[in-house]
């Protein structure tokens, strides 16, 4: 095939980019080379629109062992233990083929984790679907959930937490973000940097097929009406092979044979070989006839761009080939020596005794395009004036029932019951709480993880939204008694070529950065997913934040269920009555404008750290952060989980009762304290200048407000648990 400008454009490259390639090579690339350039230079692999802004994120901290730039981030949790974690998107493929798209998303992120030598110990996911009324939503949801379960359950890794949201902005572009945590010994972490000349380059895992060719390029473009034609770009997952690959890799890693290892994820053999060589400042030579292929007559182009799953590339110590082969034979996996490291600083590919590729590596990596895209700053929207008479006609218990059964608040048990969340025998907090918690096997420690997003806030004001979502992650960890360590982010946005969308990206990243810096909650890994749009319509800006924290003594873990009758319930943090962009405003008053709640980082940090002290001292019986739906939603969920009631009494504030209970002011937690500890707790809160209100006393069966209105816990449960089940079974 003759390569020209049109062929380059068909590969998703821009005209200027094609010209630059010809200049760098001082000749026209052949088709294999063009394929390699298009894979390395697309948005997904090159981060060409985002790199400039991502640099501003805080990535260092006293517990950070590895920040962004490797397969995943690594943090120190003491005693020579480290946690490896990352979140990644698989949005585009999941919309085209929900089961396989979601399954391979889970498979891909787990591979990133065990590539670094860590055994995966927990999976999480953040899902966003279109409006429930949209005719595609139900099938997409079912397919994605089955896909996540199908892969994760087979791998034997528990799925411990997640979130699922619905909003019409995802009608044409769903979001499937998968996160994995792995456990590794600090001195046994593996990296992707090749070193040494003439070292054998080994291919292990599944055979290469024609599936997923140009998957990463597909993920770097918007959708149009021809979307169905893209089905062949979706990979097909084989969790069984991945389970074997995991065990075989960990077995090989127990020795000292591996110099560098990289999984073949986006852009397959292309990006894995180039990344290893680039990091080691080396060249790499591969004989493509040696690559195990599933189908006959595959061309160099297809072999290099296939995104077949469950494959790894390894640079091995010389002389260890036999030992390594034995392990992969034992696990019935392909093992092939396909090339070697060189000092050419080029990628050189051979096929049928002819050289088919000769590209200097720096042209693919350092010289890849980087854009300073135009972006528009968002204005803070004006506050709405809520008419008091609108509120007067509302019955608070009716509103509460509506809020609890809202698709974005209701119980997601229908989803997480399909995920094995108890395998590995260390899950001590299951899905449905503030964070999932797994023990560090055989120790007193436990790791908490949560994944959050607040697209509505980010849409209303990206800077505030970016900050808020980091704070929410911080709160979710603290609510279970975990000390927050670090985050991973999955940045889902529309087209970076659109100034508004680019502005949303820039300002969300700025917000994330400010909050992460202030809270000492650095970003250690992540990914960017642009072009989540169909034709001209983009999604709401949706950064998903995966937070990880440590509980030093797992026996001190806190859960959100109310524990004991007569205990006192407090809310920590000040309630100002911020209604704009709350679930109440958007869904009950149908008011979609206004600013999101303000984020005060000092209060977030102070309130959170004070609560951690209270938990550590054993003063807290249960805790839950206040998020969408406000105080009363949080309290109702604690009632449901604990099968207890509460007598609520609104403190004497100037604001209206509805505003008090449904406002979404930030930095707040609900806590349960026994009577004999109340004074001590109040003293500590006062001493640390943490505002609190006393909300009421726990009883054994009903939720009362001011002794007037009441609702039974069974009614609350019905509102909360039925919506999703009914929706899916209709």
């Amino acid at each position, binding site marked *: 095939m003759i390569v020209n400008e049109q062929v380059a454009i068909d590969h998703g490259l821009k005209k200027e980019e094609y010209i630059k390639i010809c200049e760098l090579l001082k000749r026209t690339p052949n088709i294999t080379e063009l394929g390699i350039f298009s894979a390395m230079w697309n948005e997904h692999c090159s981060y060409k629109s985002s790199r400039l802004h991502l640099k501003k994120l805080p990535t260092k901290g006293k517990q950070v062992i590895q920040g962004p730039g490797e397969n995943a981030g690594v943090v120190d949790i003491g005693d020579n233990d480290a946690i490896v974690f990352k979140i990644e998107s698989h949005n585009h493929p999941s919309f085209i083929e929900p089961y396989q798209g979601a399954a391979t998303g889970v498979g891909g992120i787990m591979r990133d984790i065990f590539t670094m030598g860590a055994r995966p110990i927990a999976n999480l996911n953040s899902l966003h679907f279109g409006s429930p009324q949209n005719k595609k939503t139900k099938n997409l949801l079912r397919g994605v959930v*089955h896909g996540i*379960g199908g892969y994760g*359950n*087979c*791998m*034997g890794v528990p799925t411990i937490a997640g979130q699922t949201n619905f909003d019409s902005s995802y009608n044409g572009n769903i979001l499937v973000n998968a996160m994995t945590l792995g456990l590794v010994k600090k001195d046994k972490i593996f990296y992707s940097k090749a070193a040494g000349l003439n070292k054998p380059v080994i291919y292990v895992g599944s055979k290469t097929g024609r599936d997923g060719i140009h998957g990463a390029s597909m993920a770097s473009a918007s959708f149009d009406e021809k979307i169905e034609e893209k089905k062949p770009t979706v990979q097909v997952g*084989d*969790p*069984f*092979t991945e*389970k*074997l690959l995991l065990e075989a890799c960990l077995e090989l890693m127990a020795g000292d044979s591996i110099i560098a290892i990289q999984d073949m994820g986006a852009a397959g053999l292309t990006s894995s070989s180039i990344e290893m060589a680039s990091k080691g400042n080396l060249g790499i030579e591969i004989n493509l006839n040696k690559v195990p292929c599933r189908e006959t007559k595959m061309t160099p182009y297809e072999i290099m761009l296939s995104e077949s799953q469950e494959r790894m590339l390894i640079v091995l110590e010389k002389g260890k080939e036999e030992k390594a082969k034995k392990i992969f034979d034992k*696990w*019935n996996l392909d093992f092939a020596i396909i090339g070697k490291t060189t000092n050419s600083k080029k990628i050189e590919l051979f096929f049928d005794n002819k050289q088919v590729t000769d590209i200097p590596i720096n042209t693919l990596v350092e010289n890849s395009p980087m854009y300073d895209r135009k972006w528009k700053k968002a204005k803070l929207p004006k506050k709405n004036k809520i008419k008091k008479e609108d509120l007067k006609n509302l019955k608070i218990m009716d509103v509460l029932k509506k809020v609890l059964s809202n698709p974005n608040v209701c119980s997601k048990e229908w989803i*997480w*019951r*399909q*995920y*094995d*969340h*108890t*395998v*590995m*025998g*260390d*899950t*001590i907090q299951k899905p449905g709480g503030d964070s999932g918690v797994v*023990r560090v096997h055989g120790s007193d420690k436990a790791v908490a993880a949560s994944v959050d997003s607040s697209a509505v806030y980010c849409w209303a004001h990206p800077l505030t939204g970016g900050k808020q979502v980091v704070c929410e992650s911080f709160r979710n960890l603290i609510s279970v008694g975990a000390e927050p360590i670090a985050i991973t982010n999955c940045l889902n946005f529309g087209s970076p070529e659109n100034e508004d969308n680019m502005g949303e990206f820039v300002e969300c990243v700025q917000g994330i950065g400010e909050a992460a810096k202030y809270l000492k909650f650095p970003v250690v890994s992540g990914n960017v997913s642009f072009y989540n749009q169909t034709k001209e319509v983009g999604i709401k800006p949706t950064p998903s934040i995966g937070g990880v924290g440590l509980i030093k003594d*797992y*026996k001190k873990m806190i859960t959100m269920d109310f524990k004991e009758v007569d205990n006192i319930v407090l809310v920590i943090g000040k309630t100002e009555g911020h209604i704009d962009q709350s679930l109440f405003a958007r869904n009950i008053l149908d008011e979609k404008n206004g600013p999101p709640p303000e984020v005060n980082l000092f209060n977030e940090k102070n309130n959170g750290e004070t609560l951690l002290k209270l938990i550590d001292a054993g003063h807290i019986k249960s805790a839950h952060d206040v998020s969408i739906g406000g105080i009363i939603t949080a309290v109702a969920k604690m009632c449901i989980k604990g099968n207890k009631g509460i007598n609520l009494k609104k403190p004497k504030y100037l604001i209206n009762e509805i505003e008090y209970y449904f406002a979404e002011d930030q930095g707040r937690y609900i806590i349960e304290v026994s009577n004999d500890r109340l004074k001590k707790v109040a003293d500590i809160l006062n001493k640390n200048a943490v505002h609190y209100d006393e909300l009421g006393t726990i009883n054994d069966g009903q939720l009362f407000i001011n002794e007037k209105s009441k609702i039974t816990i069974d009614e609350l449960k019905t509102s909360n648990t039925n919506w999703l089940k009914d929706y899916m079974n209709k």
Partner: protein
Amino acid sequence: MKSSVITFPGSNCDRDMDVALKKFGFKNKMVWHNDAELPKSDLVVLPGGFSYGDYLRCGSMASKTKIMKSVVNFANSGGIVMGICNGFQILVETGLVPGVLLRNKYLEFICKNVFVKIINNNNAFFKNIDIEVLEFHIAHNEGNYFCTNDQLKEIEDNEQIAINYCDKNGNTEEQFNPNGSIKNIAGIFNKQKNVLGMMPHPERMIDPFLSGEDGSLFFSNLINNLK
């Protein structure tokens, strides 16, 4: 007491079972599917997971492995064998216990706590457990036990039903059946009652911080029964 846990490619509850057995005093060995010889054992466990990816019928590939010949011989000579979840599926494929395991009635994977009622405690597994209802944990996609009417009659006549799904008070109505299994069956024995296949995972219930502690009761009782 010596136990052996067989690891097939795709087993993923093998470690959990190892942890549980050791916690309650067994000297456990992990045995690779490709080994021909079973170590000297008082108990052999086929753990949960997705042996061979469950790509054919669940358990069918694993039932044809080298080690399974030894396990079948061990069982036929009276040795105590327990298959949990995928292990149960492997047992039915070997024919050591009758019946088959179909896809769950609602076509969904189910991970949750369930109650089971002990139907027959005159055997090494449940003897001396003095309560009737246990809280166990299930996590499976194919746990819908099925057999022919003739088989069912035989199973009932021989008192081969081990445990049935029920509510916390031991009521075994259909509504307490999570997966559609015939007669709410959650676990069955072979005729001689030295082989038990069951869907629930007692190894996930060995600690108050996990899903519950009835697994602790089960294992501590089991080792005493085998002594």
